[in-house]
């Protein structure tokens, strides 16, 4: 698997404790969002739930598997929301106007992200973008199903990849 070094070398070594604290805070925020109450019992159960969730998340996604930079992802959010609106409009047009071209097919798209968490996140986000649904990989190269193979899908995906490389830090190894 030859991946572009620029995608992996940016992974700074995250200490286990720092990751655990960040995630624990995120889960506690989620709890407060679900149950906006400051009663003592509610807070205690909330802390217990966050600790449990953090423990499970550290086992499922150890810090070495890569991370998201939430701030940068948030900055990209308007772009992706707009793109997914375009995706919906695109599909709606093709569904409702019989005259529009429909040339479905597969394209392969070599990506810089190594396999693992970062690439799966990229694939999930791009599935919501216009014209492409990720469909697994062949020999380590991503395959996309396109609704219109005459449109420049691969170039579009590469553009998104460059944007997302800022927010997604690939891990050192699989998983």
């Amino acid at each position, binding site marked *: 698997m030859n991946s572009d070094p620029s995608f992996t070398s940016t992974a700074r070594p995250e200490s286990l404790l720092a990751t655990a604290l960040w995630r624990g805070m995120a889960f506690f925020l989620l*709890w407060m969002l*679900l149950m906006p109450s400051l009663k003592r019992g*509610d807070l205690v159960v909330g802390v217990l739930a966050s600790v449990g969730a953090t423990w499970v998340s550290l086992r499922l996604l150890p810090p070495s598997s890569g991370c998201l930079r939430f701030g940068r992802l948030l900055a990209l959010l308007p772009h992706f929301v707009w793109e997914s609106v375009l995706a919906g409009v695109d599909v709606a047009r093709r569904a409702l106007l019989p005259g529009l071209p429909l040339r479905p097919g597969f394209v392969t798209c070599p990506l810089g992200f190594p396999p693992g968490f970062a*690439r799966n996140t990229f694939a999930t986000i791009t599935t919501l973008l216009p014209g492409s649904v990720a469909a697994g990989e062949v020999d380590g190269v991503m395959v996309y199903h396109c609704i219109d193979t005459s449109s420049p899908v691969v170039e579009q995906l590469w553009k998104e990849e460059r944007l997302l490389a800022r927010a997604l830090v690939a891990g050192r190894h*699989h998983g």
Partner: protein
Amino acid sequence: MIEILNFGLAALILGLAVWAVVAREAPAAVVGFIVYGLLLTLVWLQLQGIDVALTEAAIGGGLTGVLLINAAVRLRSTESTARAQRPSASTRWLAAALSATVTGALAICVLALPEPAPTLAPEVLANIAVTEVGNPITAVLLAFRAMDTLLEAIVLLFALIGVWSLAPDRAWGGRPGLLQQADPNGMLDYVARVLPPIGIVAGIYIFWIGADYPGGKFQGATLLAAMWLLVMMAGLADAPPISRSWLRWLLVAGPLAFIAVGVVGAVTAGAFLSYPHGFAKTLILVIEFALMPTLTLILGLILLGAPLRGEAA
């Protein structure tokens, strides 16, 4: 407007039930049944039973669907022989006549229900303050009809023992279910890594809020069990061997705590499962916290089925 919605829902539910009964292939029928469960959730909302809607969403839409679809795909090869054994036309007509009679009789009963309807709601409201919980359903489940809930937990345990006892002799004490291959680049793996922590927070929230608002241990435990199953389906964790003593202790911890509280009630308050004055909420919480892990484990393990592999696998 609400009538249109209700009529549409009723029509859709009937159509899907017909499909689940008559569809040619079992997987297609099961998918219909999953959709049916989802629409039933909406019906429960329309009938003002939010607690029931939550249960249906978690169990009807989630766990039952997984259980049945798995079985339908595995048993696909047996369908053609079964189709050949279809009962004769006269049997089918007889069955149709019987079913129509039952439906007719029930419909007449529904239309002849007494007015005003008998209800226990005022009694529940008058006595709920004693239990110190805010959700009347939880008060019924753990105070007014606590015996039902205790027996239910025991029924669940017996069902699990029944499932386990179907194990072939060589696999007794081993791990339930088939070994799942991990697939590190697949999407199931991705979801099974990202979703469970969120599901844990949500499941514990649904459990905890049940004291005062719709929710409770069954719904919360179902969510937790579903997350556990997701992780096992992706091959990220294996099911524990059923001979482990920690597992068996956890499985009986809930009912034992329940019975212990009941006995305490018998001594201090004069009747089995009655709570001494002022301690109702504390004791209800003790039961809830003890039942939660038990229910999660039972609901997850019962879905995995009988042990099929030795411990080492």
